[in-house]
């Protein structure tokens, strides 16, 4: 192995069109997109807001909160925190809501291949 065109690695006998229209797959696709698109959208909007605040509202960012630690520094560290939180949320969601269905579809496709 090692030199086939990329597609030939896939099981030729797997009925991809059939799987694509199966209720399980439709549900998997729906769940994947229902998480990925809105969450990524929010994260990017939050980042964009941060960049715009830094560019166009530096006085707001310079307001001290405690000691010399100001709003800007807290929002910046907040970006790091939200990145970590989104990462953990996605791992939880994928393990709980995506992986079991994907596994079921994989198993069923493998069984059909045997038959």
């Amino acid at each position, binding site marked *: 192995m090692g030199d086939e065109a990329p597609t030939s690695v896939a099981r030729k006998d797997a009925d*991809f069109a059939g799987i*694509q229209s199966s209720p399980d797959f439709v549900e998997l696709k729906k769940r994947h997109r229902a*998480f990925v698109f809105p969450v990524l959208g929010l994260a990017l909007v939050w980042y964009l807001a941060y*960049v715009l605040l*830094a560019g166009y509202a530096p006085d707001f960012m310079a307001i001290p909160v*405690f000691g010399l630690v100001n709003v800007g520094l807290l929002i910046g560290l907040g970006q790091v925190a939200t990145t970590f939180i989104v990462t953990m949320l996605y791992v939880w969601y994928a393990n709980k809501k995506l992986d079991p269905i994907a596994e079921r*579809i994989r198993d069923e496709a493998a069984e059909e291949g045997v038959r």
Partner: protein
Amino acid sequence: MNPTAVLETSTSPGEPLINIAIFGAFVLVTMVIVFRASRNNKTAADYYAAGRSFSGPQNGTAIAGDYLSAASFLGICGAIAINGYDGFLYSIGFLVAWLVALLLVAELLRNTGRFTMADVLSFRLKQKPVRIAAATTTLVVCFFYLLAQMAGAGGLVSLLLGIPDKVGQGVVIAVVGALMIVYVLVGGMKGTTWVQIIKAFLLILGAGVMTIWVLAINGFNLSTLLENAVAVAGSDDILAPGKQYGLSDITRLDFLSLGLALVLGTAALPHVLMRFYTVPTAKEARRSVVWAIWLIGIFYVFTLVLGYGAAALIGAETIKAAPGGANSAAPLLAFELGGPLLLGLISAIAFATILAVVAGLTITAAASFAHDIYANVFKRGKSEATDEVKVARRTVVIIGIVAILGGIAANGQNVAFLVALAFAVAASANLPTIVYSLFWKRFNTAGALWSMYTGLGSAILLIVFSPVVSGAATSMIPGADFAFWPLSNPGIVSIPLAFLAGWIATLVTASKKEDPAKQSEMEVRSLTGIGAEGATQH
């Protein structure tokens, strides 16, 4: 110890011999590991994808090693030390970008492709033209990134090894390039990955020790650290954004443009994408990104402390006056804290960083040439795997030589913009097509070609006619002036343009439908992992 006193007598603080000895030890240890790892390099999957045998945490550490280049370690520390908050602002984009990789790209790519980005992009479209386009953007991004790293090596040499003359620096660039060729030639992806894992570990450990040290000096109080930095700087404008990017409307827009390129470019960097093929399953690809996000995020928090620490303990003026300028902030801080030994350690890590990043770029470019152009375009997918790997190895040598010559030629030139340009090209030329082909059913070959070439062409053209190339004192060609485009970062125009081009071209050529069976196969495989190639057995 006063670093300025040392600087007056030598171009380098500390002992160049200690620096070289520690770096030599790193090279020795990694060489042994690379030779051991190379014993199983038999198939193409072994050479390009390390037999898909790395675990998520291992690959995540390697991703961090690949991503935290000398530019991000030395550059961001220096930027914070001199420009304060704006340096930090810069680092946030590099981190948030990983959410795009985690949520949209990593797992789907791992499930559909085998070795290169083009595998995924050409999956359900016309193989030949799409592969050529994807390989072109891959090679362009890798070349820009590579050149910036190699040119940066020259500056580092003068700073860390005390070699001020261009000939001596050229020799060191050649040595770095030659070492890199050996790593990649012998070790393939497995060897390269181990170099990156070791380097990431040392880098994060070194930065972590220095961070705790700086915090300890300041009573573990961030506010005290900031107070000391402000006292040395003599002004509190380093605490708020604006010092670098807030000068005018142009600089603000420029930063917005850069931010877009950073956030959307990371998940489309070919050498980052290729790392997802080194793990056995999509779930491990997910774990890799999670590990990478934690390591990179923590590292950037470290650089925040180190940057302000350098501002407080050394001072922006001293840093600017040192050889290497802003890049010398982290090494000078290491010297201030731990004397020549810690400086030697940090210097060796900085060198290892260049070596590891260059190796990762080279194997990506070589794989793309051998797998996409040679095997799938020239030989139409009918080449022997052994021939393909042979071509890849030859390409590694050629790229290595080009990198050495380019690095020597670009040494001392202002080519820092090349890294930002690499991100902008990745975000404009690659990301739209990656997203469309994974998520948009009707997307077709014309859409992919228009999007990729529009993104690539517009990003490069805008850079050529920007102040980074001509028309300003800091330009690459300061004498000439053909800069009629005011922004140094093309992303804000080229990224939307490429998305638009892909969309319009697909709609205009809607009659040319792609094979619906391929679309079904790609969608099912990307989400379920059916038919994805697992780890090779030895």
